[in-house]
């Protein structure tokens, strides 16, 4: 019986061994990366969780979390963080979507040029860009000087060291994250769809809202989600342009460590921020496939 099986299924064991060896080789190739992730991600985050449950007396305690619920200043910080993130995301959509639309209409060569100017900020340090805004927006800065010499306003406006300045800086920095997936989604739309809509009787406006816009929403959601999540943990720009008036979670974490040397409180905030982010991602993933973030909604 076993003889007949062997002859009917030639080379069965050899092929199975080959398959096992191949998997083993692949595992071997990816192990350095997995080790790296373990060392720089899993262990620190685990440590963060652990520290967040250690109280001031060095024993297990929930006091770091209780503080966040009880103290109104903490709640306000979370509210501010959400506020800044929502406003930045909204402004990015309002500015980025039309810009992406404009770029998508351009001939390829011009569109690529525009794309480079959109990407250009990526190649400049975040810190440099943030300080550049500080220079531009301050009382004697270029923006105020020009606006006044053009007669747009008479007194220098306070547009930095507050929410306005923070939003200007953050929108500028986040814009590419929105534009790229939206632009990708727009470029992927076959022109035939719009011609078909028009042929079937849709005015250009109607064709946009019933066909073009719905087809770009996966890209728009992906971009907006990316911007929103990046905003939640943002530090440099609100710290520099907010002038201490806009305090986000990340800034409070830093001050907890640098000012109060309270690692437990800082860790607890980090944990809460991480969990909030994961919850948002989880909710979002029910409405769109997350791999669309990289593929521009296709």
């Amino acid at each position, binding site marked *: 019986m076993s003889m007949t099986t062997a002859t009917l299924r030639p080379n069965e064991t050899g092929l199975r061994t080959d398959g096992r060896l191949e998997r083993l080789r692949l595992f071997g190739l990816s192990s350095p990366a997995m080790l790296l992730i373990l060392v720089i991600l899993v262990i620190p985050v685990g440590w963060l969780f652990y520290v967040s449950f250690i109280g001031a007396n060095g024993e297990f305690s929930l006091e770091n979390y209780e503080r966040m619920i009880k103290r109104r200043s903490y709640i306000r910080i979370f509210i501010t963080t959400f506020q800044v993130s929502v406003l930045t995301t909204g402004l990015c959509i309002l500015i980025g979507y039309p810009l992406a639309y404009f770029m998508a209409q351009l001939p390829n060569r011009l569109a690529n040029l525009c794309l480079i100017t959109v990407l250009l900020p990526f190649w400049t340090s975040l810190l440099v860009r943030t300080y550049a805004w500080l220079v531009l927006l301050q009382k004697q800065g270029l923006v105020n000087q020009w606006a006044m010499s053009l007669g747009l306003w008479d007194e220098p406006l306070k547009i930095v060291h507050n929410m306005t300045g923070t939003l200007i800086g953050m929108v500028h920095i986040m814009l590419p994250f929105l534009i790229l997936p939206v632009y990708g989604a727009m470029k992927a739309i076959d022109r035939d*769809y719009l011609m078909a809509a028009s*042929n079937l*009787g*849709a005015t250009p406006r109607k*064709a946009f809202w019933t066909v073009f816009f719905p087809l770009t929403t996966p890209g728009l959601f992906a971009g907006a989600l990316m911007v929103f999540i990046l905003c939640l943990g943002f530090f440099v720009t609100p710290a520099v342009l907010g002038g201490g008036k806009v305090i986000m979670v990340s800034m409070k974490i830093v001050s907890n460590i640098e000012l109060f040397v309270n690692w437990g409180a800082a860790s607890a905030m980090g944990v809460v921020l991480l969990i909030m982010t994961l919850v948002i991602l989880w909710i979002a993933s029910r409405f769109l496939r997350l791999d669309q973030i990289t593929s521009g909604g296709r």
Partner: protein
Amino acid sequence: MTTRATEALPISVRNVTKTYGPVNALDDVSLEVKSGEFLTLLGPSGSGKTTLLMVLAGFTRPDCGSLKFGDDEVIRKPPHLREVGMTFQSYALFPHMTVAGNVGYPLRLRKRPKSEIAERVERALETVQLGGYGERRIDQLSGGQKQRVAVARAIVFEPRILLMDEPLSALDKKLRDQMQIELRHLHEQLGMTTVYVTHDQREALTMSDRIAVVNHGRIMQLSTPRDLYERPANRFVADFIGESTFLPVRRTDSDVFYGDTPLHYSGDLPETPDLLLMIRPERVVLSANGPVEGANNFTATASNVVYQGDSFLLHAWLQDGQQVVMRGAVRGNSATALPVVGDQVTLTMSPEDTVLIDGREA
């Protein structure tokens, strides 16, 4: 079944020119499409046939010319006001809507009541034999089904003119043949004036009332399929439709000579000294008993014989070195009768099948 709410409209294209830089995509094109006619624009890629269709639909703005649907001048009318149905090569079905959403789209734009939309959508889907498919997603459909939905969407608002841009080019051959018959049947049923674009000559011959052969932005010939095949106006048309071999001939007034042999021919000669004898492979007969009285006879040497199941192809050298191709039927006992390479054969062509065409480059 679908009742005809409106009568079909004739289309009149006059002197339409469209240039892209130095290229004439359309070169002073004039064309009359009769009411209810199925007219095909046939040509190689880049010939201008699609440009002409885009002008009809309003997506391409010509440099000049006139376009009338019935008595209305529409050349400056934007596409969404033209009220013509159209199907696209890519189908262009909206992927974010269901089948019913797609088919109902033109009716929703026209603000028809919901119940009427549902009813007309279902009726249109039934017309293309997709009744009950309304709730399907577009990506759940096969190529042939997509094509049908595209047609349903184009006819649901009862346009009086239907434009089709290579609608079957993405389908496999078997389905294409079937859809050709179906579309033709649909046209007979609905009766709307139809302009159909294709580069497939067989498709054009199968489906059309008339065919306009387009090349270099001009209409080379506009005739019925049969005229086009049997009386092509010039070498381009003869070459594009069907296979043929061309032999140079000599003309003296009304006599035509191939070499020193006078040719028996039928029909009128084109008004040019520059004539070519068109030889369609299936109009040449292999004569077993030598030259036939009253027909045109050619002595040739077989250079290649290809057995193709339903027929055989014979390539043969004429005495002056010209090569001709003929196609013969294969019957049960004729296997022995097939010529072999090197055989001397006599090819004959009846005067009715002897067509002389304008040899000038059009």
